């Protein structure tokens, strides 16, 4: 088993954090191997943002993701850039708050999940938790790590005082996935 996942959007959306949380869930709470990489801006600051995670039962030699099994996109630019790279039959999770519907051609070869992720987070109180909503969606859809592992990893990472919000955000993502 080897699954490659990519989370892409804009700086400030917390996708790097989401990627790390997912990777930590895999690392600390499963027997699987995990690597996580990310893209950086010109020196290291700002701009577009992308986190990749590989979770595998084998040793992970080559650590980069080229054709993800799963793609989460939370900005239009990211969608435009990465949709094509997803494997045939792969899954794409789209934050419809910021991203236009997936073009017909792509939606035929992919499993497309569309949900207003950021709007949902705003509804819960703070848009900053959109990354965790996305994570809930992702975990529920893929089953790549156990849900309680994911929640534990979320709680390990998020700032004190935001635990409840983030739990709710995760749950909202899970709900959304179930509802689809």
């Amino acid at each position, binding site marked *: 088993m080897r699954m490659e996942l990519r989370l892409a959007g804009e700086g400030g959306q917390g996708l790097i954090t989401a990627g790390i949380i997912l990777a930590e869930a895999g690392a600390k709470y499963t027997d699987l191997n995990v690597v996580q990489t990310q893209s950086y801006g010109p*020196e290291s600051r700002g701009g577009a943002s992308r986190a990749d995670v590989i979770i595998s039962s084998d040793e992970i030699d080559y650590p980069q993701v080229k054709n993800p099994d799963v793609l989460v996109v939370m900005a239009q630019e990211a969608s435009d850039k990465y949709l094509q790279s997803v494997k045939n039959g792969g899954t794409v999770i789209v934050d419809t708050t910021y991203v236009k519907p997936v073009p017909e051609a792509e939606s035929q070869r992919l499993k497309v999940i569309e949900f207003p992720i950021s709007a949902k987070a705003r509804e819960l109180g703070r848009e900053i938790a959109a990354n965790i909503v996305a994570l809930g969606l992702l975990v529920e859809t893929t089953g790549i790590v156990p849900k309680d592992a994911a929640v*534990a990893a979320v709680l390990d990472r998020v700032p004190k005082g935001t635990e409840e919000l983030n739990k709710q955000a995760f749950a909202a993502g899970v709900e959304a996935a179930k509802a689809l």
Partner: protein
Amino acid sequence: MAKNQARLLQGNEAVVEGAIAAGLRFFAGYPITPSTEIAEHCAAKLPVAGGKFIQMEDEIASMAAICGASLAGLKSMTATSGPGFSLKQENLGFAVKGEIPCVVVNVQRVGPSTGMPTSTAQGDVMQARWGSHGDHEIVALCPASVKEAFTLTVEAFNIAEEYRTPVVLLLDETIGHLREKVILPSKEELVVKDREKPNVPPEQYKPFAMDQGRIPGVPPLAAYGEGFKFHVTGLTHGEDGFPTGNPAIAEKQLRRLNEKISSNKKALCKVEKFFLEDAEVVIFAYGATARSARKAVRDARAVGIKAGMLRPITIWPFVEDALLEVKAGRPKAVIVPEMNLGQLVLPVKSVMGDSVPVIPINKLAGQLITPEEILSAMKEAV
């Protein structure tokens, strides 16, 4: 939910964990992508461990400060990337000449000049060897995983202390920024070495003795403030550490300085051998590139190509002996994939001589060489 022993650690973070485990107590640095996380983690963790972190005004000062701290007795480190590594060269030479144990991390990015700061490269491999003026040997280690970033940092400190020399830890951006699941060795599993101290009274202490110390040519090192009142200079000096203009003494000292490393290649040169026994085509790869190579070897074996990999863990001194073994196996080719213009091809060729073709694969612009690219080179070679 029950956690296992593992952690998700970034390469740069693992360097800091390894360093502190090895006894690091002083870090001086200057931020530069993609090494900055090393400084940042040191800033957070060193004072907790009772150590000191300081951000200096530049890389030159950082290199100087770690030399000073090391002479005062603390295990010391700095970290940088290409532009900063260039700036450190003069004082790195001072550390070599003063025989000052310390660790210098270079997380490589695309050069030359400012280049592509966030893109991966292996373009400073020859610079690590030859970047400072004058004849000097250097020890350089190159991890290919986050775990190894930890263990080789410990090793780097051990070598620095045992051989009284700066050790360069050469990461590439890929390994520096990679987060990977690791289980770190426990304190008990770690071997941590400390510099040898003089066991003579101060009047008899020769900080640059020709013939003292556990390892021949490596004199014991006192620390400032312990009463030895010794002198350290970048000028060519005699056994007592004071400048000499006597060519015979100078020649001896300069040779000792080089030979304490070059004559200990056996101990210093570490390699990983991967499916080498019966290999008909051998990949010589290091750092992140070795991960692609390992995948390529597995894929090649899967299609019936007898592939293997020799991975130098020690980059300098050069792993000549291991390559001679490879040569003895008369492979059809040695493939050298590097994220540079072929910097280690020259020494590999000079070992392989006329008998084994050496095939470089090079990329300059910050893209990791892929397993597919290596595999297709192998297919062509056999």
